[in-house]
């Protein structure tokens, strides 16, 4: 039983990443009608916001250590971050320690700006173009973004740990009446799940309860009519794109302690997040979130040794297998609307 609870927790965590990326992706699909193959790259850029902030905070100058030499026999230089000098060593270390959460503050403007620039500079010219063209141009953009990151940061994963305070695990076992130390779950992963719930709720609330959201939802349903009513839907769509970029970016920032980011991570998530969006059903935000969690949990169950003993290799294909079954039994995914991206 405790093993199953643990796998549900794992699944919720995996699902969180899927859900956040798919949420932005489906927002862009639904409102703008654009297939955005650069969405994985936005997630990756978010992660690198955290890496960059960490690097900035770690900017140091070299101080020679008297009496010691490095591997070539030159005097050994020790790096002292500037933050230490400005805020004192204790505060400085604390700031560096908290660089991942702090990166949220950096990622919101940066990703928002990237989203705006992308939509205004590129995507808006592709609203009326075939989906195939959209795929080609966004895929090209994704490659370019990736290569730029690779040029500056290399291809190796870069460790970006969570703050000290979040290391260690929470004991669910005691909470649920099991023995101690049976269901331990790392704090940071719980934070990630909570963060996802918060973001998803915020996006839904925004679309549900604000006039802006109402217009966007109307635009999703029938863009032309909204345009005829004299509402400038284009400007709102720009903002929607920026929001989607921010959501993907924040998902990336918070994910860095779970997986050390490298330039290629976006591509790995791209395919999965497309599967998630489609399984959830085109044009449905709740569908995307639901599919994210469902696939995350099923993937976790499929990686249990007991399951693999029975069906070796299931963990390799479970997501795709489930996607096929769902799409064949439910024509428009879990909650898809009729006529969206079906032609």
């Amino acid at each position, binding site marked *: 039983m*405790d*093993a199953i609870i*643990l*796998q549900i*927790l*794992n*699944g919720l*965590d*995996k699902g969180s*990443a899927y859900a956040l990326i798919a949420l932005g992706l489906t927002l862009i699909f639904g409102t703008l009608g654009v297939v955005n193959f650069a969405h994985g790259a936005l997630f990756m850029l978010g992660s690198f916001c955290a890496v960059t902030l960490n690097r900035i905070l770690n900017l140091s100058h070299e101080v020679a250590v008297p009496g010691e030499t*490095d*591997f*070539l026999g030159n005097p*050994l230089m020790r790096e002292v971050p500037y933050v230490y000098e400005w805020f004192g060593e204790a505060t400085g270390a604390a700031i560096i320690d908290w660089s991942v959460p702090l990166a949220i503050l950096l990622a919101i403007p940066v990703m928002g700006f990237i989203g705006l620039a992308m939509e205004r500079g590129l995507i808006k010219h592709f609203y009326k173009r075939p989906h195939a063209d959209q795929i080609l141009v966004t895929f090209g953009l994704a490659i370019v973004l990736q290569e730029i990151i*690779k040029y500056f940061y*290399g*291809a*190796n*994963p*870069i*460790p970006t*740990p969570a703050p000290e305070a979040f*290391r*260690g*695990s929470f004991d669910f076992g005691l909470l649920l009446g099991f023995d101690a130390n*049976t269901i*331990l779950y*790392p704090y*940071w*992963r719980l934070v990630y799940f909570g963060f996802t719930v918060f973001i998803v709720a915020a996006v839904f609330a925004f679309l549900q309860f604000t006039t802006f959201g109402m217009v966007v939802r109307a635009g999703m349903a029938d863009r032309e009519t909204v345009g005829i009513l004299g509402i400038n839907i284009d400007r709102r769509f720009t903002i929607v794109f920026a929001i989607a970029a921010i959501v993907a970016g924040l998902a990336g920032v918070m994910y860095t*302690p*779970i*997986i*050390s980011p*490298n330039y*290629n*991570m976006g591509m*790995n*998530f791209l395919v999965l997040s497309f599967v998630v969006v489609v399984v959830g059903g085109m044009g449905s935000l709740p569908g995307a979130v639901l599919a994210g969690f469902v696939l995350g949990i099923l*993937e*976790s*169950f499929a*990686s*249990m*040794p007991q399951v*693999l003993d029975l069906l*070796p*290799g299931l*963990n*390799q294909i479970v997501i795709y297998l489930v996607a096929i079954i769902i799409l064949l039994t439910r024509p428009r995914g879990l909650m898809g609307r009729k006529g969206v991206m079906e032609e």
Partner: protein
Amino acid sequence: MTKGTLSRRGLLKAGAVTGAGLALPTIFTSPAAAFTNEPTGDSVTLGFNVPQSGPYADEGADQLRALELVAEHLNGGGDGGMMQTFSSQTLEGNGIMGKRVEFVTGDTATNTDRARASARSMIEKDGAVMITGGSSSGPAVAVQALCQDAGVIFMAGLTHANDTTGKDRRANGFRHFFNSYMSGAALAPILADQYGTDRKAYYLTADYNWGYTTEQAVQEATESKGWETVEKVLTPVGAGDFSSYITPVLQSGADTLVLVHYGGDMVNSLTNAVQFGLREAQANGRDFQIVVPLYSELMARGAGPNIKGIIGSQNWDWKLENQLGAKYTGTNAFVRSFGEKYGFPPSQAAHTVYCQVMLYADAVNRAGSFNPCAVVEALEGFEFDGLGNGPTLYRADDHQCFKDVVVVRGKENPENEFDLVEIIEVTPVEQVTYPHDHPQFAGGELGACNAGA
């Protein structure tokens, strides 16, 4: 009709056809070359085929640095690096057999198809007589087979799976790097010594050939020391988040986790394992331990502080000579020339390809010919020293190098990002030597050397 291809550049540089722009077409027939890409000019072209995109791009970049360095050294540039310490003294800094060393580079992208296409372009277009480089076993085995067919020499780069010199061995292919079996054999006594002989191990294994051979090697070696295997789980390559594989570990009754992962997978699985508290956990009344059979400097850097205290094995380490003395001579010479050129110490991936090129150059000099069959003969059973690993044998039966294996541990207080591991012990070569028909290597045949043309 000619067979194979000739070195066009070599031909032209030899002056066989120059000037005469509109002369009658000359069709070359086979007697023009005795073997594929016979260098006839004053230079010889080597092919450096390393991953430049994909997950191992940084490792490939480090290999390329070492390869540029060795070309420089062979041509008499720089301080000569390991050329001075190498036990065979045929290299004089005048290239190979008096021919200047030129090289072409390509991208394997850690993909068998791309690696082969790139190698073929080097052989067909650029006239390379030898291909080296690479950072994983899939492309290494694939390119080795290609070189066998084409009639050029393949000096494998970083490839650790038993298959390269086991079931997929080829007469034209040679491996300096160590392998899965050696990792297992080197680690087992030290693991038994450090963690006890009654450990219960849980394996998370990358679900592809290298994973299979390494898992088998470590399992057999540790079980012979009294360890038990609780469970073995195969994980998809590039799984990203390994949490769902990690959580069952503590409940399985195991007290040791063996992570048979490499590259990004290893970084992620180890990071996840540490996150889930496996480093602090207690099992069977003992501290829980994690083992990573194959270490690399770049992986250690990617895993950051999570690597602390984790034991693994390496082919070579840049601190070897400083810490264990003159037996490993060559290490410091190489580290010095590499460090002076690039500003940081070399990785084991860089070291192995540097050695491979130097060994090839020396073999050609000793054989007095670039003919692959002559080179094979010169390398088979060749004993040498001074390339940083101590006395080493290139065994004739399977073209595998036999040398000491370095067992390392993640350092508790690293001084900088290049000093992440400490050497615990070196397992002597006798303990990692196996018969060439050992079951883990069965099913392969070298075949005959192929000179092409």
